[in-house]
């Protein structure tokens, strides 16, 4: 079946602009996760959703970052007033239920100039 999809695949923006990143999880997966992966670095947890609720936002780096999920499916991650240090690959994953195997999307490569 279809895997996790993310859009856009690449995004170049200017410092100070807002960006929206989209994630379409695998159909039927109730849990959705956002991670950030900087060049040559490991994975950094940002936020997860169980249905439309976000019980754990502890990984969001600052209040410029927010995320929402509607209809228990699509999620958007919004970064306001982007900074150069926000440049990274933003990965979305989903799982059938919390703590089950997570399946990742291809990521959105964000470059802030």
């Amino acid at each position, binding site marked *: 079946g279809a895997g*996790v999809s*993310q859009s856009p695949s690449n995004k170049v923006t200017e410092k100070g602009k807002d960006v929206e990143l989209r994630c379409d999880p695998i159909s039927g997966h109730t*849990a959705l*996760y956002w*991670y950030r992966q900087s060049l*040559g*670095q*490991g*994975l950094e*947890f940002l936020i*997860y959703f169980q249905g439309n609720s976000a019980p*754990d936002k502890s*990984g969001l780096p600052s209040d410029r970052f927010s995320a929402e999920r509607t209809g228990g499916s699509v999620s958007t991650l919004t970064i306001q007033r982007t900074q150069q240090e926000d440049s990274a690959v933003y*990965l979305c*994953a989903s*799982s059938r239920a*919390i*703590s089950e*195997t*997570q*399946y*990742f*999307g*291809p*990521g959105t490569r964000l470059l802030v100039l």
Partner: protein
Amino acid sequence: GESVGLHLPTLSVQEGDNSIINCAYSNSASDYFIWYKQESGKGPQFIIDIRSNMDKRQGQRVTVLLNKTVKHLSLQIAATQPGDSAVYFCAEIPPGHNDYKLSFGAGTTVTVRA
């Protein structure tokens, strides 16, 4: 949080040979481990997992070994192929409320020589 480390950042393997990728973990209470593969320009792809009540688990061309005594995890790839060239991450899932937070280190980059 706990850190999960990999012994070597790079591994060069001759096509057809077997590969062994090692991982050391620090939380002795961790009870679930996963190996992911990430090819250039793609997201991490699940390869195989193992729970702490097992020492070994086999998949297609891959075997994961868990040594809880020394907190060591390894991934063995049989008859390595060019398509196996990627960065490999091990993820440690500690018990408790935050066991959904995958944590990867920098990974091991495997390059397969033709």
